[in-house]
């Protein structure tokens, strides 16, 4: 099946689904939900086929497709995926059906909001996310990068909680500002990079760009990605957006969309501007480390569950950033693995928090207390999601965090040591949050809420089960994922011109480091 145009079909499929679901009249909400779920499952199945067809020892970029678009600018519909993009595509394909199922009742019992529109927006969002990871043409990438904002803007703005307008506008403006910086760089790159947008051809000609120009272009891309990721100090939109978005959409927002930032740095910043990447690396490392500590401290102090999870994400993105800019294969592989694991762990955490919030009607930690007495199973799931999020050994995030830290330690001991403090803080914010919500004496107000007596339903079990299983599986046996990631990361590090120091050749997974 290697000749099958996986990427273009994968990209277009959710768009068609979004149109189909969007056209279902709003009275038939159940039909819309079912179609949306079925559609996202088809995308998942196709992605699994693609995963199987991907050759680990094959070319760096596979499933290459290219169609003419704007010849006078040499912009084309070019799709190709390396290992990094492949795992991200897989993550999207897994998370979207889970989120659709988790959001099943999000727009029920409310005559104002239309369920088909909500699920159409989720599918439209999947379309833009797949497009952004599958694009191998810089112009096409930019188009998806910007268009991605629109479905999420309406999801937050129309279906979010309190302060949704403020959050939606802030989210949109932050991302747009970043995107416009990138636009300037894309134009500049087009002019100095041989008047083409084809990634591989630009890659060949970037050596001729003079140092100064290259640094400015790097900066344009980097600011856009740093806002998207988000790295400290560009992060302030995320707690608002994550706090206001419906829980399922927040899982997609933080679990996948923010990865576009780190993915963009790996795919575009490092290979296209290697010298500038090395030059800016110390600054990026400092920002990332500050982000780890600062966001973790803020997370400890949060009283709003969704904002708390958003802050934990910023801290995790700090780890990913450290791993990327350490420029070792271990740390790089760890970062990419972290992107996947964080998507699963934080996605799960957001979804479970969403289940609590849906029952209680409030997302404030202080409105809970001893909820585990009423909802023992759900509280257990929250506990598990929290442990995965703080990277407990045995869960997948542990491996990625460990890889990042040892990969960084070989080259930057100080940063690795400071970043390790972040692990302790992670334990603090997760455990304290779990304690305040589910442990201890029962908050009497909870008993008066009828929904709080209903423990996890079958639908919710189906939602959390795949994520829990994946987190455990990848916690014990990450080889299938690291095998795919490793060659792509090595190629990226070669582009940057960094080789691993000393006697490394160690990967925690017996992978293919050579």
């Amino acid at each position, binding site marked *: 099946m290697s000749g099958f145009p996986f990427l273009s079909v994968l990209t277009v499929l959710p768009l068609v689904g979004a149109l189909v679901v969007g056209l279902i009249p709003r009275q038939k909400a159940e039909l819309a939900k079912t179609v949306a779920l079925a559609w996202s499952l088809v995308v998942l199945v196709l992605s699994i086929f693609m995963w199987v067809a991907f050759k680990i020892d094959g070319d760096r970029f596979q499933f290459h497709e290219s169609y003419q678009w704007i010849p006078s600018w040499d912009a084309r519909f070019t799709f190709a995926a390396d290992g990094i993009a492949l795992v991200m595509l897989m993550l999207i394909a897994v998370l979207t059906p889970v989120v659709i199922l988790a959001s099943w009742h999000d727009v029920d019992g409310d005559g104002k909001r239309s369920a088909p529109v909500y699920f159409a927006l989720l599918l439209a969002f999947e379309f833009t996310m797949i497009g952004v990871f599958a694009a191998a043409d810089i112009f096409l990438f930019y188009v998806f990068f910007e268009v991605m904002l629109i479905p999420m803007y309406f999801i937050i703005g129309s279906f979010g909680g309190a302060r949704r307008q403020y959050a939606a506008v802030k989210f949109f403006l932050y991302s747009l500002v970043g995107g416009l910086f990138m636009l300037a760089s894309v134009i500049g790159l087009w*002019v100095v990079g041989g008047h083409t947008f084809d990634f591989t051809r630009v890659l060949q000609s970037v050596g001729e760009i003079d140092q100064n120009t290259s640094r400015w272009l790097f900066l344009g891309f980097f600011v856009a990605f740093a806002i998207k990721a988000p790295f400290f100090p560009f992060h302030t939109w995320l707690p608002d957006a994550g706090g206001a978005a419906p829980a399922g959409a927040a899982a997609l927002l933080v679990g996948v969309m923010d990865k576009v930032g780190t993915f963009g740095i790996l795919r575009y910043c490092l290979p296209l501007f290697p010298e500038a990447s090395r030059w800016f690396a110390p600054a990026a490392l400092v920002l990332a480390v500050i982000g780890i500590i600062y966001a973790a401290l803020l997370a400890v102090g949060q009283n709003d569950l969704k904002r708390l999870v958003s802050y934990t994400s910023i801290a995790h993105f700090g780890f990913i950033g450290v791993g990327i800019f350490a420029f070792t294969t271990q740390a790089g592989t760890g970062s990419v693995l972290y992107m996947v694991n964080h998507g699963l762990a934080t996605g799960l955490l957001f979804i479970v928090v969403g289940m609590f919030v849906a029952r209680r009607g409030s997302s404030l930690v202080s409105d809970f207390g001893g909820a585990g007495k009423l909802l023992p199973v759900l509280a257990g799931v929250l506990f598990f999601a929290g442990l995965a999020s703080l990277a407990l050994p045995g869960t997948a995030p542990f491996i990625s965090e460990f890889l990042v830290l040892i990969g960084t330690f070989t080259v930057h001991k100080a940063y690795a040591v400071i970043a390790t403090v972040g692990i302790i803080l992670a334990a603090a914010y997760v455990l304290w949050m779990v304690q305040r919500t589910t442990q201890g004496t029962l908050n009497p107000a909870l008993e008066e809420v009828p929904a709080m007596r209903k423990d996890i339903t079958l639908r919710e079990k189906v939602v959390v089960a795949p994520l829990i299983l994946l987190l455990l599986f990848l916690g014990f046996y990450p080889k299938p994922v690291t095998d795919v990631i490793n060659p792509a990361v090595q190629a990226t590090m070669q582009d940057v011109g960094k080789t691993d120091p000393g006697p490394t050749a160690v990967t925690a997974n017996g992978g293919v480091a050579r």
Partner: protein
Amino acid sequence: MEALKLPAIDYGALSPMLILFGFACLGVLVEALTPRRSRHAVQLGLSFVAIIASFVAVIVEHNTQKITIGGAVAVDGPTLFLQGAILALGAVSLMLIGERSMEKGGAFVSQAAVTVGSQKDLRQAGEQPGATEVYPLTLFALGGMLLFVSANDLLTMFVALEVFSLPLYLLCALARRRRLLSQEAALKYFLLGSYASAFFLFGVALIYGFSGGISLGAVHDAVANPQRSEVLLYAGLAMVAIGLLFKAALAPFHVWTPDVYQGAPTPITALMAACTKVAAFGALLRVLYVSFEGVRWDFQPVLGVIAVLTMLVGAVLAVTQTDMKRLLAYSSVANAGYLLVGVLALNEQGLSSTMFYLVAYGFSVLAAFGIITLVRDADGEATHLSRWAGLGRKSPLFAGTFTFILLAFAGIPLTSGFTAKFAVFGAAVEGGQTWLVIFGVISSMLLAFPYLRVVVLLWLSEPGETTPTVSIPGFLTSAALTIGVIATFALGVVPAPLIDLTRDAAQFVR
């Protein structure tokens, strides 16, 4: 004494203009000879025939490359492309102008001279059918614009400037509602326009003094090989530029724009925002590229500062607006700045990308003003921003259309706003004007805010008591909106054909 020798005239090359002017004169006769009841239908039909015939003439002449009628008119790639653009945009504006179903008698008043607030005025506002003189006036204006972009000497350019400006001054005064505002707009536009024309004419005189000729080619030769004081050249160029910058609404010559855009009948505002912009930039391109290319190092920084000023002023003031038409006016000022960035690339790409931008922006802005004509209450159009709150709940289709157009203005990909901005910014970087692009990007960031505010109002705010209704558009407005939206989408997704067309057309004759 020698017999006066008539210049050779290529009627074919001139035919687009001749057709429009001919039909415009015919329209005046129709006004006199047709009974009042059937006038509107006849005039409207006649105007469409005129524009279509003229457009066909442009297509027939598409390969022409010549200077004719004694050097007064140059018919070349940019001329024909811009003429085609003016006609296409003019046809869509005409649909808005011709709409009569939303309001009794249409958007125009029958007698503009009636004292505002008098009994007669109230009567004519409520009942009488609108003036049908608007059609010949529109045709004259469009004809003048066609001549303006093809003028090959500065005097012809001045004549064309007056030919298309005078009907516009009149049209501005004809709004059915808010008569005082409309008259004020017309007077303001007329006075400031006259000053600008005077500047232009004085500049022409100085340039004549410098070069001893008024044809653009002669000026070019004189610039390359100056015989007289260059003070004349610089002063003349500055004054000619002021005249053109005024029409193009570039800061600091933009102050008329919000008042006129707000006061004029909305279909006329649409016509000005789309077609006048094409004409003004067409002439600016021709003057700068054909005549003054030799002193580019002198005017590029000055005009660059003007472009930056325009982009920033337009964007910043758009943020503070509370009236939809004024908001779009300031956005149009900012867009003029982006266009000037494209012009200042001063290379072939600059020419082609500016032409692309003009067409892309024209269709979007027509659709935007088209929607404004629909949102109305008992007193006519409800243009105050607060009145638009929650419109998405009441009429999702129109709110969705408007949102799409606003996203296009904000330059979001998959709309023509993005490809057009990309084209002009790309040309400017290519032409070594990276600093302009940086300011352009900053201005785009600022400008995104007001657009987003409107989107928030439309969708995320609760509808208030005073939220007006969206009228069911008549056939003509529906057609105009459809064309505008489809063009905005198509030029964003498949811009290649039009880009190729602008590239093929990007060659001036001198």
